[in-house]
């Protein structure tokens, strides 16, 4: 019966094993994080250009450049610089930006909280809508509604992100309607939560992009589940469609969806530079792009590591949710 059994209906075999899985994941993440920190450090060293020159600009004299280089400890061997940096990092000190002379921790913290708000709000929009759309279109697969939604989502996915962003600006703030401000001019004096309308367009753009991908994934898994033997069996024994959907199909379709949602969440954090530019949104992606451009090495390192940590953390959280959703958590081994 293994092939036809509903995998979500199995008896749990204890939480100790789950804790073990999470513990192993955490340990591996930690090792990977150390490797990441070395890679990030090496990559920033390999960037062409001289940080002292970027600080001083075109009219610097060689003497000034040399003095600044030794002041910034850029003359020391690379491994020494790494150990110094990693040591400070372990004490929670990201260092001071060479370019802005501000604590890197402050710069990154402000950007993270902005990005976090946008990503969470976009998620709050896109996940439930995607689930509803995915289930609806899977149940009515190949119907007119399904085809229309599919077409729109493929069109959205095919558009470069900034084109979608600009189309929304034209539609919702500049040309047709004047509902939202076109630029996320956030005042640094206030919390983002106090100026939510200003981030409406970035949230909407991000949500649409997430939906166009996520809903199709839900739809595909739902179609698979609806065609499975256990759903077929439930149907044959006369169970109502509604019960089949909510009790058997959706819970089983959710597992791959949760994994995908985790990935989308992590990518949304660092990978939306283009959207941030269009809306002049002071987020993590723009900060990273600007820091690379100005060779603000400490900021580059801090943000890259932050994004790595977010990836690892999201993976662990999605694993946890997966374990919760599939109580035995171990497929055919129960």
């Amino acid at each position: 019966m293994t092939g036809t059994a509903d995998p979500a209906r199995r008896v749990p075999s204890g939480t100790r094993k789950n804790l073990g899985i999470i513990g192993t994941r955490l340990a591996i993440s930690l090792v990977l994080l150390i490797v990441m920190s070395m890679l990030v450090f090496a990559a920033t060293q390999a960037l062409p250009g001289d940080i002292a020159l970027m600080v001083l600009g075109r009219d610097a004299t060689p003497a000034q450049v040399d003095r600044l280089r030794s002041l910034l400890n850029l003359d020391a061997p690379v491994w020494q610089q790494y150990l110094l940096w990693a040591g400070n990092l372990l004490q929670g000190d990201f260092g001071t930006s060479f370019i802005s002379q501000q604590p890197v921790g402050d710069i990154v913290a402000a950007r993270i909280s902005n990005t976090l708000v946008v990503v969470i709000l976009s998620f709050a929009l896109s996940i439930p809508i995607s689930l509803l759309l995915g289930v609806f279109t899977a149940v009515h697969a190949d119907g007119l509604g399904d085809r229309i939604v599919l077409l729109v989502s493929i069109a959205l996915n095919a558009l470069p992100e900034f084109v979608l962003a600009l189309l929304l600006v034209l539609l919702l703030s500049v040309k047709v309607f004047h509902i939202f401000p076109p630029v996320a001019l956030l005042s640094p004096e206030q919390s983002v939560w106090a100026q939510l309308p200003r981030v409406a367009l970035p949230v909407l753009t991000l949500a649409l992009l997430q939906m166009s991908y996520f809903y199709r994934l839900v739809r595909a898994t739902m179609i698979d589940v609806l065609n499975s033997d256990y759903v077929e069996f439930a149907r044959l024994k006369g169970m109502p469609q509604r019960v089949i959907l909510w009790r058997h199909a959706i819970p089983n379709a959710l597992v791959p969806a949760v994994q995908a949602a985790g990935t989308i969440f992590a990518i949304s954090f660092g990978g939306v530079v283009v959207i941030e530019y269009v809306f002049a949104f002071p987020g993590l992606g723009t900060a990273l792009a600007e820091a690379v451009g100005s060779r603000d090495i400490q900021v580059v390192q801090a943000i890259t590591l932050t994004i790595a940590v977010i990836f690892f953390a999201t993976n662990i959280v999605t694993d946890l949710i997966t374990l919760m959703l599939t109580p035995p958590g171990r497929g055919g081994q129960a």
Partner: protein
Amino acid sequence: MTMDSTKTGPNRRQILAGISATALGAALMSGATLAFAQSTGTLRVACNGSASDSLDPHRTQGQVTDIVRFSNLFDGLCEYAPDGTVQNVLAESFTPNADATEWTVRLVPGVTTHAGRPYEAEDLIASVRRILDPEHPTRGASLIAFVDAEGLEAVDAQTVLFRLKRAYGPFRDVWANRYLRMVPRDFDPSAPDGTGPFKVVSFTPGRESVFDRFDGYFREPALVERVVISNIADATAAINALRSGQIDMTYLVPISEAAIIEADPSMQLVNNPSMLSIPIYMRTDVAPFDDPRVREAIRLIANREQMVEIALSGYGVVGNDMQGRNVTPCGDTPVPQRTQDIERARALLAEAGQSDLDVEIATTAGTPGMVECAQILAEQARAAGISIRANVMDEATYLANYGNWSFGVDFLSDTYLPVVARSLVPGGTFNNTHWNDAEFNALFERATASSDEAERCEIIHQMRTIEHERGGNIVWGFANTLHAVGANVQGVVPYVVNSAFNNLRVVSKS
């Protein structure tokens, strides 16, 4: 089969319910309708800056946000009027001795700082010493390198005697430069006190600064009560913000958008006939450009009209291999315009044995037109049978070898003599051509020493003629600097050297 057969943590329905609840919160927010337009007392300005933004008028990287900020917080001894002439601000008078080696500067009486302190001779001396401080290099230091920092003397509370290391004739003009703003004697950039028409309320580097009108300003106070300067890196975003009324002025306008803005009744294009030149430089001390014939050939390959038309979309004027869009008050230098002459270029290249020249031109997107002009020149070079390859780099990579590229593009924005000091004589930090022409250098010495304007103009014409004949630059054109402001903004005029953004005191909104 019942739902309670599993006992590990929250069930799926609870998880789904949680997700739906958060969605509701987001949905509520999207219902808000907004009025974007701001009050007429607050002027909202967008500029491109960076994380290195500061409120220090001297120790700055010179990005636009910094310049706009410190130009409105601090005053210079002088400033540029829209037509490029120099006007006194903090200075009441400049008096030289017979050979222009000593200048007596008298300050306007009754000037007070934002903190309510009188602005006096000791403050001026502290400012000049701060600019010249060798421990903290500033952008203004090279402009006044002729000043002896130790020889500054307060004659009385309003008067300072400048002793110079060498005679300097255009002494008064130099103080109009944006990097020579004056600060109080114990200046602290973290709590900046100044004499300017606005005072700091708040400042977040890379994001936003808020300034209020300084009601005790010694000239006419500002027309608006408050200025908010926001960093917007992307020009399209800035134009969208302007179009919707979120901001009133944007410094950054891509040349490609200029025509659209001119046609839009809700916006005005500010077309500044700037001193901004985008020279293509050739190193005169290494092969192949150490041969004047090769330099002239490349100058003859350049089709300047085409470069201005394409690289600047027509928002600029053709140059004639001489710096200075105009050299007010000297008038035009009588030299015929150099035009494209492929045949002559081929002949010169053959003569120099460089008929199959293959070179790379270094450039970066430092200012609009820098990348395009290199690409256009590369295209035009094909007609002469040589190969020029445009190497477009990011700014950091370009700067890493700045001053050493044998062939490249740069930009310079200043009046004639400061441009010469920085880029056409030995020791100038922008002297990418490594040009060292004895006759030209001697003329420059004489021009800076002379306090007789007619004589100085005569020398400047000779200098420009030499530049045209045998210099290392292709000065193919001068770019206009474009800004855009809302239709309801008044008092914004085009500037030759400065920008209306640096004089927000006279701008108002209706």
